[in-house]
């Protein structure tokens, strides 16, 4: 503590006047608790059951006076369900897979770029990473969707680019940037002694990286990587705003086909919530268990 601060405190102790004490920030939890997977995995299986029950009961009360009954709405949902899942949710998953694939490949390259000994390459990779890590996903999506051509011509053949593929590229940008940070962070976390030992055994930088450093990083990259996959999957309904026929778009179309009864909203979107939850919750639980296992092993 600085001497000046100490003197001030003594002064405050002596006065009878109301004194504004210095503000102290003491966070209650750890930064780790802010991880999305952790938050999601914190739901106990029993609480899920209760949430599910509330979901089923609440519309029953709310719709009691309406002439379009809850049973009818559920019936509509039941009829549309196979279509929504196999055409809509399947597309969300498809987009999430491809985005993760493209984002991971690009992210690993960008992350390696960040630790490159070539300063311009390292600076550029850092800049790209920061740019896409700190941009709103929806804006990135809009830019890519509107800027990319709807077809490309190679030789005489014209290849159309479907909307979902554009969405993949749009969502890949923030995923790429975040994977890049994961890779960089994992590499930096390997003790410098490992670099020095490899160097003194005459390994080239390339050999050091691929034979010694990266194999040690791999494990610690998996939990954050899965965390980002869960976040990405949950973000895929954003593409419905751009007209891609994902689960949200198809649910809206289904509701329109059922004459847009307001009573349909809760069952249809409630179902969307449940199916995303059912998909992401196990991933989150598994991420946490992997994290724990790797901590024990290290």
């Amino acid at each position: 503590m600085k001497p000046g601060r100490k003197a001030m405190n003594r002064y405050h102790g002596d006065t009878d006047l109301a004194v504004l004490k210095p503000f102290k920030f003491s966070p209650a939890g750890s930064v780790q608790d802010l991880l999305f997977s952790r938050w999601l995995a914190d739901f106990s299986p029993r609480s899920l059951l209760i949430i599910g029950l509330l979901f089923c009961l609440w519309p029953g009360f709310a719709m009691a006076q309406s002439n379009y009954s809850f049973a009818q709405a559920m019936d509509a949902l039941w009829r549309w369900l196979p279509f929504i899942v196999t055409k809509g949710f399947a597309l969300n998953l498809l987009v999430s897979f491809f985005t993760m694939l493209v984002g991971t490949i690009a992210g690993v390259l960008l992350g390696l770029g960040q630790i490159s000994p070539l300063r311009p390459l390292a600076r550029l990779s850092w800049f790209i990473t920061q740019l896409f890590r700190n941009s709103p996903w929806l804006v990135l999506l809009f830019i890519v969707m509107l800027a990319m051509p709807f077809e490309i011509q190679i030789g005489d053949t014209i290849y159309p680019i479907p909307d979902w593929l554009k969405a993949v590229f749009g969502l890949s940008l923030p995923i790429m940037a975040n994977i890049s940070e994961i890779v960089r962070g994992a590499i930096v976390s390997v003790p410098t002694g490992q670099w020095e030992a490899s160097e003194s055994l005459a390994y080239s930088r390339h050999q050091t990286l691929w034979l010694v450093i990266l194999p040690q990083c791999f494990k610690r990259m998996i939990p954050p990587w899965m965390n980002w996959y869960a976040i990405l999957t949950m973000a895929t309904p954003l593409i419905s705003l751009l007209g891609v026929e994902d689960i949200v778009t198809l649910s809206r179309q289904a509701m329109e086909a059922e004459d847009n009864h307001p009573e349909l909203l809760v069952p249809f979107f409630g179902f969307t919530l449940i199916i995303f939850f059912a998909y992401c919750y196990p991933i989150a639980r598994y991420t946490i268990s992997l994290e724990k296992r790797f901590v024990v092993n290290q």
Partner: protein
Amino acid sequence: MTYNDWTPDQPLVSIRDVHKSFGDLEVLKGVSMDVKQGEVVCIIGPSGSGKSTLIRCINALNSIDSGSIKVEGLEVNDPALNKLELRKTVGMVFQQYNLFPHKTALENIMMAPIKVLKQPLEQVEKLSRSLLERVNLVGKEDAYPGELSGGQQQRVAIARSLAMNPDVILFDEVTAALDPETVNDVLVAIKDLAKDGMTCILVTHEMGFAREVADHIYFTDRGVIVEHGPPATFFKEAKDPRTQEFLSQIL
């Protein structure tokens, strides 16, 4: 291609007036020494006197600001020098062992000869097993570093360095991180090397070891070599007051 007229009767490592600074802190202020082939040299001195920095400069892990370091006639400070070729000649063992945790003891030893020297697998495996035997670790071939004690890890590190068949090995306070009861096993392994004629440069705090094994002892303090000589005279007839004070504290 650098012209090289080095012959084995000249010093294997020749250090001339080396200066090295980290920012404003000058850690080496004109250090010179020669190490002949087959010689065992111990560098002692208080912490922060620049000992570790000096030997890390010999295999170019640290660069120097001025002066010259020659290993077998090749200038280490030359920007055109192929550092990988230099490091095939100069082995190094670290205080923290720095074994690769994802590889077994045997794989740790085999990796560099296979990947760097491109030697055939069977030959390398045979050599590596015999090296493990030499450092008294038979039966630990498939153990991961995490399953070995500090002393065992350090002996694997010595074997790993030997597998590259270097002409000189640098030991950077290799026993400083060890439990007292495992120190001796490591010292025995180094003694064994020295007996076989390996050129060794050690930074160490083990005075008994230095006295017994070293051909020449250098005492460094605040970036300069204060005094040096063969152990018999060095320990009995230290002239400089700084050396005397250090020895009185340690012995």
